[in-house]
């Protein structure tokens, strides 16, 4: 897919909270006899006063600041998440108010499990590309819950990023093309009113994550006539590091290409924020002229694939904390009870 006019990312911002739960603490509670090796050593969790709204606001503010655009230029904002604080009431309006871009703004929340954020990116590209708005913010952010003792509890992390799309000549990375590849596949879901999601175990692998990520990626490469080696960086959705390495290898991307965008080892899976955070981490180090390959995955299921090209503007759009600065900001939680309280899994 290509928009009628060229669009790109004018500014971006990321957020990861400072708290890290050691997965060893989770192991100790649920496998007291001996811990199996966890996919990640620690995962990020939100502080008691944080949620998708607060994190989205910080990332969005950074994106707006780096883009050098004034609030009235932003005509749309979408927040993609599977852990919105309200089931009914948009997070996007709170973000819009906090940024000072109300009232002439399109604002809504999106849901498509872990690809709700890249969903927002597709919409942003379309609105800007159609000339309907000057700037459109796409945010993917999550603080997703996981059932205590479930496999996902060891990897369910927290964080995400925001991307302000605008005309390509203002951008730090232009959009070459994008596409969505979607089927109805219930590999992972949460019913209305349920506190925690359900998942299909091994079904979440090949028929789900791999099938859609591979198909979307191959279709996009074919559409734009490119090969993996044409790209300096490749970013994928990161449920566990091993999935990323495998999908990259199957497509023909090298370890070096995925390295900068692979944030999961230090913080776990940020769900709708995961692939966007990986993209932000890549933009933190990318050089003018480099091409970036991006493919998200969301259960339900589908993938959004994008190809970007970095412009000369990137060098002066990096002020403020980078993804690595957020990752370096760490406060360890080694007590499972403390973790439960922070996650509001137990309440007074």
């Amino acid at each position, binding site marked *: 897919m290509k928009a009628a006019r060229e669009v790109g990312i004018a500014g971006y911002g990321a957020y990861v909270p*400072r708290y890290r739960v050691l997965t060893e603490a989770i192991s100790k509670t649920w496998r007291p006899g001996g811990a199996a090796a966890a996919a990640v050593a620690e995962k990020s969790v939100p*502080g*008691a*006063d*944080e*949620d998708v*709204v*607060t994190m989205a*606001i*910080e990332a969005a503010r950074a994106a707006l600041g780096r883009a050098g655009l004034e609030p009235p230029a932003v005509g749309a904002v979408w927040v993609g998440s599977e852990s919105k*604080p*309200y089931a009914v009431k948009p997070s996007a309006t*709170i973000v819009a*108010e*906090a940024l*000072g871009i109300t009232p002439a703004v399109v604002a809504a929340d999106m849901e498509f499990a872990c690809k709700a954020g890249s969903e927002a990116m597709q919409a942003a590209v379309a609105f800007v590309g159609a000339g309907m708005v000057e700037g459109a913010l796409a945010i993917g952010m999550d603080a997703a819950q996981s059932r205590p003792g479930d496999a996902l509890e060891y990897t369910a992390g927290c964080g995400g990023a925001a991307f302000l799309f605008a005309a390509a000549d203002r951008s730090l990375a232009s959009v070459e093309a994008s596409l969505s590849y979607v089927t109805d596949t219930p590999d992972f879901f949460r019913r209305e009113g349920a506190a925690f999601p359900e998942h299909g175990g091994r079904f979440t692998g090949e028929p789900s994550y791999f099938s859609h990520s591979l198909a979307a990626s191959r279709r996009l490469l074919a559409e734009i006539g490119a090969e993996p080696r044409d790209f300096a960086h490749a970013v994928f959705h990161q449920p566990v590091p091993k999935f990323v390495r495998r999908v990259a290898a199957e497509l023909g991307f090298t370890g070096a290409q995925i390295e900068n965008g692979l944030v999961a080892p230090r913080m776990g899976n940020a769900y709708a924020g995961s692939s966007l955070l990986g993209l932000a981490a890549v933009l933190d180090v990318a050089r003018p002229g480099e091409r970036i390959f991006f493919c998200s995955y969301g259960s339900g299921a589908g993938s959004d694939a994008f190809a970007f090209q970095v412009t000369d503007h990137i060098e002066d759009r990096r002020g*403020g*904390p*980078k993804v*690595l*600065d*957020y990752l*370096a*900001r760490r*406060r360890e939680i080694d007590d499972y009870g403390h973790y439960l309280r922070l996650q509001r899994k137990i*309440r007074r």
Partner: protein
Amino acid sequence: MQLPRFHRLRSAYYRLEGQLCSVCGAVQFPPRTSCAACRAGGLERHRLSGRGSVFSYSEAAQAPEGFAPPYLMALVKLEEGPVIAAQLTDVEPEEIEIGMAVEMVTRRIREMSPQGYLVYGYKFRPRIELEAEG
């Protein structure tokens, strides 16, 4: 907090929006109907930068109902001059010093009840350290 009152406060709570006096140039927060410095009425909306330093602080032994622990309160001296009451966040009590640089972030101040609405507003945290530029 009553919903209509919270609604009226959102620009102050979300964006730290105070006032700039067009007569004497003073910046004030909280907003008032006249300038506290010169008593004139020429006030314009003005968004404060959010940068400031800790003027005083206190750690409460208990958080009142609806508020999230840990519970650190402070008077923050903003770079434009006003001193405001706000919670500190993302910091441990032993790390706090009077004079330390802080920046505004928007956080959950409280939930009115487990099923009730959420109050978001300003808190302050130590400025995030940036890695040396490579």
